[in-house]
């Protein structure tokens, strides 16, 4: 009988303690209540929840708060895509503008053996570390991909890999959060529309002769693509061919005439 009383006693004491603490917490919750828009919770639930930071905010919570505060449009969640944008817009009572799907793109074709190197690099496998040598890494071109994979490690979606010394983006997996851009010490990675099939695989702003000297796959600014393009969609700016994505129809004519074979729609498109 004594034993049973002991058990009852213990249960009672702990129960009372729990109730008292619970009461205190409830009371504290009232005192420390922070007025929060209930829509923040709803928007947060509608987001993809990858916390990738692709929207430009610290995380999904921060983005949800910004949307409700009216500081951010509802269509910035890349992993969630159009479906999420619609849901968020519905909560906020806005019209969802269909967002163009973007992907990251590494505009460099200077793989191993194609781009000339200053020296054999045998240091840590890290682009930032390699950049410490001559401020551009082992490859002579200062616009080239170093190829030691800082972007690959930064990618949370497994959408990047190194192919022959140059980073390549898997367009199907990429959500354009641009974490790779932040990780890239040379900042050469660009955001391009997913639909864009023709891309220039070089960003070298060196003059033609210089580019020719240091890379077998660099844009030398010969203007051939600019002259041949039937839609006036490609122009050479700063000694590098640049495509106007609004005008480009993806006919691929520039790719055929490019003497350096760096505008190569299939190669980029296949993957």
């Amino acid at each position, binding site marked *: 009988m004594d034993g049973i009383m002991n058990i009852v006693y213990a249960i009672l004491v702990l129960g009372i303690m729990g109730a008292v603490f619970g009461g205190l917490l409830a009371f504290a919750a009232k005192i420390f209540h*922070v007025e929060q828009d209930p829509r923040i919770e709803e928007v947060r639930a509608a987001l993809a929840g990858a916390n990738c930071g692709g929207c430009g905010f610290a995380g999904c919570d921060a983005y949800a708060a910004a949307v409700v505060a009216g500081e951010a449009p509802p269509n910035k969640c890349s992993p969630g895509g159009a479906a999420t944008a619609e849901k968020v817009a519905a909560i906020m009572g806005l019209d969802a503008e269909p967002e163009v799907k973007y992907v990251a793109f590494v505009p460099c074709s200077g793989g191993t053996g194609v781009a000339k190197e200053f020296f054999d690099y045998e240091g*840590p496998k890290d682009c930032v570390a390699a950049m410490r040598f001559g401020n551009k890494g082992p490859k002579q071109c200062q616009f080239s991909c170093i190829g030691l994979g800082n972007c690959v490690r930064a990618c949370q979606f497994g959408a990047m890999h190194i192919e022959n010394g140059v980073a390549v983006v898997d367009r199907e997996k990429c959500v354009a959060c641009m974490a790779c851009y932040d990780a890239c010490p040379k900042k050469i990675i660009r955001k391009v529309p997913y639909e864009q099939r023709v891309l220039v695989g070089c960003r070298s702003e060196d003059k033609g002769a210089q580019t020719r000297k240091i890379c077998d796959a660099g844009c030398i600014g010969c203007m051939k693509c600019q002259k041949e393009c039937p839609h006036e969609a490609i122009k050479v700016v700063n000694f590098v061919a640049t495509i106007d994505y609004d005008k480009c129809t993806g006919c691929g004519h520039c790719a055929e005439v490019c003497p350096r074979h760096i505008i190569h729609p299939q190669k980029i498109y296949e993957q």
Partner: protein
Amino acid sequence: MFDSVLTIALGAILINNFIFSQFLGCCPFLGCSTKIDTALGMGLAVTFVMGLASAICYAVNMLLIALELEYMSTLAFILVIAVLVQFVEMFLKKSVPSLYTALGIFLPLITTNCAVLGVVLLNVQNNYNFIESVVYGITGGLGFLVAIVLFASVRDRLQFADYPESFDGFPIALVTAGLLALAFMGFSGMKIG
């Protein structure tokens, strides 16, 4: 009085460091130590909760002893810590929102930090009085802070270290933690008081 407090403080920070010689709180030690900033935030939050938990659990323990229910102490302490962390979270959200956002997910995770439960149980085991308990709680937290910040700084530098690839990630972190613990063993020969 002052002597015993000083002994407890130095002991908790260096000689009997919670992580390096008692192996308590290893989860956040490994989980939140990739950046120095977050390590610092985590350490401060843990110090705060440990100090407060020591104080309140001292009172709760007195109550349990009076009711002859000492065997319930673990359960009661867990209850107190859970409530405390919840309370701290609410308090920070209202009063110091900037710190609340900086700590983020780590704040609720302190509930399951075994260093916090460890410190209150050790207080009972060592028969500390109220002041000693609080000092032990706060300095134990400071020891945790020192350990996690040191570890985070080392891990920061490891990024450029050229270790074998198979050690990448957790293995090299554990090797580092082991070496740090070895370094802290140097204090174990010290005897105060």
